[in-house]
């Protein structure tokens, strides 16, 4: 059985829809911005009408359904597709995105992915507002400390100031991103030993 490869799936979808027409968001985008974690699906924001997106996927042999979502429950319409056993969600813009700030990352075979920029990603995550989303925001802020004032201001506007503050203070998340004192000391020691080994090899 072929190994699950989310990046290949994302590249294939971007090739079908046109790399300029879809922005990678979700777990893979979080990973590309520095918080690498496992994710099960591939998420895109698309510019085109969702019915047209679904038709395009179907025309390329990809099973896809259009779900409407209940706006009263905070739901939104979404195309759900399945590519090589990987779920792909294609959503309309849920916050006003600055499309021109998205980052183009070239992949193999001449394809490329447009990845949502960090600030828009934070707004998308805060709009979603689930526990995983807040953890992602906090992890990205710990990874990019200059973002902290922006993230806290955004969280205040989305009514999530206290929730984000709790995640930012979480010692387990801090340890995961920055490493514990012991891990940092171990890394320093390993670096010193490597350098010492290289120096002695050169002397010989």
């Amino acid at each position, binding site marked *: 059985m072929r190994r699950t490869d989310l*990046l290949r799936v994302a590249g294939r979808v971007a090739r079908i829809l046109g790399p300029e027409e879809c922005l990678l968001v979700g777990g893979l985008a979080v990973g590309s911005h520095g918080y690498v*974690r496992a994710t099960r699906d591939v998420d895109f924001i698309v510019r085109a009408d969702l019915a047209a997106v679904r038709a395009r996927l179907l025309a390329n042999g990809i099973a896809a359904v259009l779900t409407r979502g209940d706006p009263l429950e905070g739901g939104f319409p979404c195309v759900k597709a399945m590519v090589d056993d990987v779920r792909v969600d294609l959503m309309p813009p849920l*916050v*006003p995105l*600055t*499309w021109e700030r998205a980052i183009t990352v070239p992949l193999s075979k001449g394809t490329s992915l447009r990845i949502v920029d960090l600030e828009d990603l934070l707004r998308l995550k805060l709009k979603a507002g689930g526990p995983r989303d807040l953890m992602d925001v906090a992890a990205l802020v710990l990874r990019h400390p200059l973002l902290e004032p922006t993230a806290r201001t955004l969280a205040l506007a989305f009514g999530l100031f206290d929730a984000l503050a709790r995640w930012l203070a979480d010692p387990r998340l801090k340890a995961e991103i920055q490493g514990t004192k012991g891990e940092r000391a171990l890394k320093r020691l390993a670096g010193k030993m490597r350098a010492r080994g290289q120096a002695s090899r050169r002397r010989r």
Partner: protein
Amino acid sequence: METPLSAKAALLQALAVPGYGLDLVKRVQRDSAGLIRLRPGSVYPALRAMEQEGLVAVRPGQADGRRGRPRRYYELTLRGVQVAIAQRAALLELLGGPGVTATPDVGEMRRQLESCSSLSGSVVELERRVRDVMGLPR
């Protein structure tokens, strides 16, 4: 100088992040380097009109000392987001391009994307094997 945007158009752009009336007025002024100043007399009718058109939704915030009255936070609806994006695109077209240049480390982003994809593949594979061993449906 005459304000170059209607209150509604300015508010739609300021609402990229939810906010309350006075906050939005300050935001428009700050983000336009003081060139666009909205008056409360135009802001609240515009927000009410946008609410009626289904462009914004209102949620009460926490009471914050205004004699115990909670602020009204305005947030774009899905339709509001679409209109804001379309208006922004039209404005950028009119003004001749975005003028924004991001300089992230694309090579590093690609490496991290690959790590994330590889890690996710391993987790999915591990879960499959555990399910197989335990005889659970996939």
